[in-house]
């Protein structure tokens, strides 16, 4: 045989090996730290990690893997969302029927829809818990302020994705929740009406028209929500997620306290010295990240290789998230009510659980509860890292002196204030029950929601003055908001029934 034929046969024989080598440039499982570094930065998906990671950031109780869980849930919603798009038809005539098909006819359709719903819900939950983790470990401080803002953007996008997805099944739940939601967008009209301005200046009407493309929830609304849900919002979320991860890396990894030279760190069940200067060490570009001090002349001994330590940890969190979502999806089905009917509202027409706190506020005043308070809370959260600029306590739960007592005091204070306000409202009604002819402006300005915000703000200011610390007053305010959110959500979920009346348990709801 000729030489070329031999070569061809040999190439054919080694085809699998060559394809594998072309794919995995670093060869088999890396054996040296050099190969482990290459495995990390030669891979598009891994190279957003640094090559080495600090042992503190791998401690499960620092982060509880919450950010990774949120990202995993997002991945699950993308995969299952694409699968659902195979059958879903975004038209008012066909949408409900296609969801019914997915629910009852399509193989694994119900299970896929359940996963989509559960991972979306878990994503909302983990995003909120992740934010709380970052706050209580003071991880938003310099130079991580910008990433905190990106996180706020991700929170808003997560909520917007849930909201737009809620309409798509076109059942009663969807129709009435979005009717309420779009009228909340319309609610600045409550204020402009009360001031007699609507004729000249109508931001509420503009928002509603942009959202619905009409004056009512119909085909235009469904088309717009579909485009937002399957394209605009996910793309924005992926972009922000990329920036979020990128900034973690560029800000020098997760927030952590400075290592004490010669101190001890616990890793893998043994205590070892964390700092041994190795003057001969040279650093590649990949080790140059922003930190308070340059990494030159400091040993990497308190760090471990990202491959495999960090990747095992991330994979474990991902697996855990998938498993939890699967179990929930197996035992609990996504609801599908009757087809949307504009004549008969659901009673009670409840939003998904994470919006129920807002729904309770909205039942006092649409504008204050639905727009003003959420905007105040979001803007207030975004400002935290720019108002609290004193360094210290980063990367440690309740790391500043006196944080824990303030946290517990605020927890008790906010619980008493919220429960007290709810008891008052349920038992005695509100301004209009006492003064039937009262002007609407009074109700917009003074209602249980706005009073709670005021009480929380006063509490935070009193902590600022008493403790002489911005961080502690931020802890007080954040704890109050978190408690208020949790209690209002619980209250509206369990204790509000038909006609938004108070009931001790859903089993006491009148049968109709």
């Amino acid at each position, binding site marked *: 045989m000729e030489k070329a034929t031999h070569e061809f046969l040999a190439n054919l024989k080694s085809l699998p090996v060559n394809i594998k080598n072309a794919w995995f440039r670093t060869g088999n499982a890396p054996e040296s730290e050099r190969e482990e570094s290459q495995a990390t930065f030669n891979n598009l998906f891994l190279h957003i990690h640094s090559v080495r990671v600090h042992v503190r950031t791998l401690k499960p109780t620092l982060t509880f893997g919450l950010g990774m869980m949120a990202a995993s849930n997002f991945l699950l919603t993308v995969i299952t969302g694409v699968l659902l798009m195979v059958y879903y038809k975004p038209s008012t005539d066909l949408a409900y029927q296609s969801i019914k098909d997915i629910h009852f006819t399509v193989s694994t359709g119900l299970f896929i829809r359940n996963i989509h719903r559960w991972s979306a819900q878990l994503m909302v939950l983990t995003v909120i818990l992740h934010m709380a983790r970052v706050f209580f470990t003071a991880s938003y401080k310099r130079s991580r302020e910008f990433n905190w803002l990106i996180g706020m953007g991700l929170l808003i996008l997560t909520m917007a994705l849930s909201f737009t997805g809620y309409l798509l099944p076109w059942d009663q739940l969807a129709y009435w929740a979005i*009717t309420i939601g779009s009228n909340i967008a319309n609610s600045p009209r409550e204020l402009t009406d009360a001031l007699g301005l609507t004729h000249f200046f109508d931001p509420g009407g503009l928002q509603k028209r942009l959202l619905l*493309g009409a004056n009512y929830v119909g085909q235009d609304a469904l088309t717009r929500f579909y485009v937002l849900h399957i394209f605009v919002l996910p793309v924005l979320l992926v972009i922000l997620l990329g920036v979020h991860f990128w900034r973690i890396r560029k800000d020098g990894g997760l927030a952590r306290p400075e290592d004490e030279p010669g101190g001890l760190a616990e890793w893998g069940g043994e205590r070892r010295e964390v700092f041994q200067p190795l003057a001969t060490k040279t650093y590649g570009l990949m080790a140059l990240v922003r930190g308070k001090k340059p990494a030159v002349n400091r040993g990497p001994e308190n760090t471990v290789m990202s491959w495999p330590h960090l990747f095992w940890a991330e994979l474990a969190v991902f697996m855990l998230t998938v498993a939890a979502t699967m179990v929930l999806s197996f035992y609990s089905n996504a609801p599908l009510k009757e087809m949307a009917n504009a*004549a008969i509202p659901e009673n009670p*027409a409840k939003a998904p659980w994470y919006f129920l706190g807002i729904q309770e506020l*909205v*039942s006092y005043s649409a504008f204050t509860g639905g727009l003003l308070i959420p905007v105040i809370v979001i803007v207030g959260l975004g400002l935290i890292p720019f108002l609290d600029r004193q360094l210290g306590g980063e990367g440690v739960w309740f790391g500043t002196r006196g944080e824990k007592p303030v946290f517990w005091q605020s927890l008790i204070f906010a619980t008493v204030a919220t429960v007290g306000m709810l008891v008052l409202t349920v038992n005695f009604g509100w301004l209009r029950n006492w003064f039937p002819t009262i002007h*609407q402006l009074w109700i917009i300005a003074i209602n249980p929601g706005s009073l709670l915000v005021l009480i929380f703000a006063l509490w935070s200011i009193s902590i600022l003055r008493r403790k002489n610390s911005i961080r502690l007053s931020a802890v007080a305010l954040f704890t109050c908001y978190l408690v208020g959110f949790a209690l209002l959500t619980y209250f509206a979920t369990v204790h509000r029934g*038909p006609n*938004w009346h108070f009931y001790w348990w859903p089993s006491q709801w009148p049968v109709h």
Partner: protein
Amino acid sequence: MSRLDPPVLKRRSFLTLASLSAFFTALGTAAAGMLRLPNPAVLPGPVRRFKLGPPEQFSVGTETAFSDQNLVLFRDEEGFYAISSTCTHLGCTVARTQDGFACPCHGSKFDAKGHVVGGPAPRALPWLEVGLAANGDLIVNADNEVQDGTRYRA
């Protein structure tokens, strides 16, 4: 200022600023133009003028609920009037109760004339324009609100 003094703004900086501002003006205009698109010039929607039947069909002192049209038609000694059953709070459909209307979504309460008596609703249920169609049927224009207390005598 002499000709030899350094200029306050260098020619190069001026040109840079001018071209940058031209760029951002063009970008802003283009963005504003694109944002015009989703704002509908014409609001699609069904005609909301409903023929409800001949006036004789409704006797004095009665009320008739039209759930598909989201309104309740009343007739008393003074004439006809129609009240919208869409809540002025957040757009749920109110239900008729013994002494008025109640909203299932957020607990707004109205009296039998549509005035707010409780809950978060910012204003009274609108009274709608009632008239007579060419064929003699009562017609309600749900897009036209009238002063409350206005009756139509057929």
